[in-house]
């Protein structure tokens, strides 16, 4: 019979918390930069010159059809071969931004396509340039329409950041691995770490709902019904 002992986990809980904090930090950085990259790519595909749109489409397909772990290894182990030496933290964040940028681009593109043609015709009748149209007429409702899908993708990225432990970064999963090799209390450690990840997931969900509520006027008017979509 196995005796559970959570004592080593509790004794080293500050270690796990610092790992959770790093997970939070890299995820927020990746979300902010990845979202910006995603918007730029989606706009480039919508109104950019054709070669640029094709390059962006290739980037999106390449990223979406290969594992994040392999992308991470290419950035961290592969790039030094062409003279780009990165720390684990830099490589981790760059890989996350590249990955999230592609997924957000695809989601935002779906949002852009959901905007009715008549709105574009109305905007061009007002003499708006293509960029002004994007900025003022298309993007705000497009992002609002796909906001729930976008935030799920952000949360998936937070969970995928656990793979940064494979390049020896001390985020939450990395701390768990370290602690496991020190104490051999695998089951206890990984179940507590799973709970911490679930807590982070719920934290992000609440945060995104609050941001959505503050950003989209329609949500405030409709109350929960908009947010529940």
């Amino acid at each position, binding site marked *: 019979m196995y005796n559970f002992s959570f004592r080593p986990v509790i004794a080293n809980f500050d270690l796990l918390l610092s790992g959770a904090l790093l997970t939070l930090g890299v995820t927020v950085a990746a979300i902010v930069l990845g979202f910006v990259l995603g918007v730029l790519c989606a706009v480039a595909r919508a109104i950019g010159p054709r070669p640029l749109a094709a390059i962006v489409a290739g980037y999106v397909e390449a990223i979406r059809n*290969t594992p994040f772990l392999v992308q991470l290894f*290419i950035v961290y182990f592969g790039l030094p071969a062409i003279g780009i030496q990165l720390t684990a933290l830099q490589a981790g964040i760059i890989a996350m931004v590249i990955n999230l940028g592609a997924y957000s681009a695809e989601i935002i593109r779906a949002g852009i396509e959901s905007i009715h043609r008549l709105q574009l015709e109305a905007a061009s009748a007002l003499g708006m340039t293509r960029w002004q149209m994007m900025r003022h007429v298309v993007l705000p409702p497009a992002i609002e329409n796909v906001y729930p899908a976008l935030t799920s993708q952000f949360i998936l990225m937070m969970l995928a950041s656990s793979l940064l432990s494979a390049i020896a970064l001390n985020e939450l999963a990395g701390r768990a691995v370290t602690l496991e090799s020190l104490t051999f209390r695998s089951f206890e450690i990984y179940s507590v770490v799973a709970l911490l990840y*679930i807590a*982070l997931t719920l934290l992000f969900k609440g945060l995104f709902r609050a941001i959505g509520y503050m950003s989209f006027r329609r949500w405030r008017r409709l109350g929960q019904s908009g947010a529940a979509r």
Partner: protein
Amino acid sequence: MITDFGLPAFWLLVKATRWTIYLSLIAFVAGGMAGFIVALLRTSRSAIVRNIVAVYIQIIQGTPVLILLFMAFYGLALFGIRLGPLVAATIALMVYSSAYLGEIWRGCIEAIPRAQWEASESLAFTRWQVLRHVILPQAFRISLPPTVGFLVQLIKQTSVASLISLIELTRSAQLISNATFEPLKTYLAAAAIYFVICFVLSRYSQTLERRLNVSR
């Protein structure tokens, strides 16, 4: 001893790919069966059952696959259950798939108009008969594109099994990269192999979606 990354090394990668495919298929079939049960329970008439399954889904979807994998591989070993990497990876990916497929399929079941339930019940069908003859055949059709889409996610997730030393595509890329000192070429080659498999499936999923939309 391999000295540089050439065709022989690439061939090793291609051969390792079959483990990626095996693992994906086993996890997909096992996860699909578990996911089917999850979807049925999630649409059950009992609110208690629905809520318990919702919590299960919340827990699995809130935990990284890596942690599920470590729990299966290192965690269960402590109870005297020694699992090889292949079995541990299968269990972890099955649990992962059951939650995501369960949610996808729940959506497909709920997409069938409620009036059809009522019509079937008025014909004195039992709940199982309604599902079997009316709801599931239609839900199955709708579920095809997202299910193939999820299979792509699953194939990519199998790369995580490399971290418990299952010698699938990613792990053998690691080994070859260590032997050749050419990580860039090696990992790009591995990425290319994943890309070929996943891109074909992604396209197929899009085709299915278009075809179903036209006929609706």
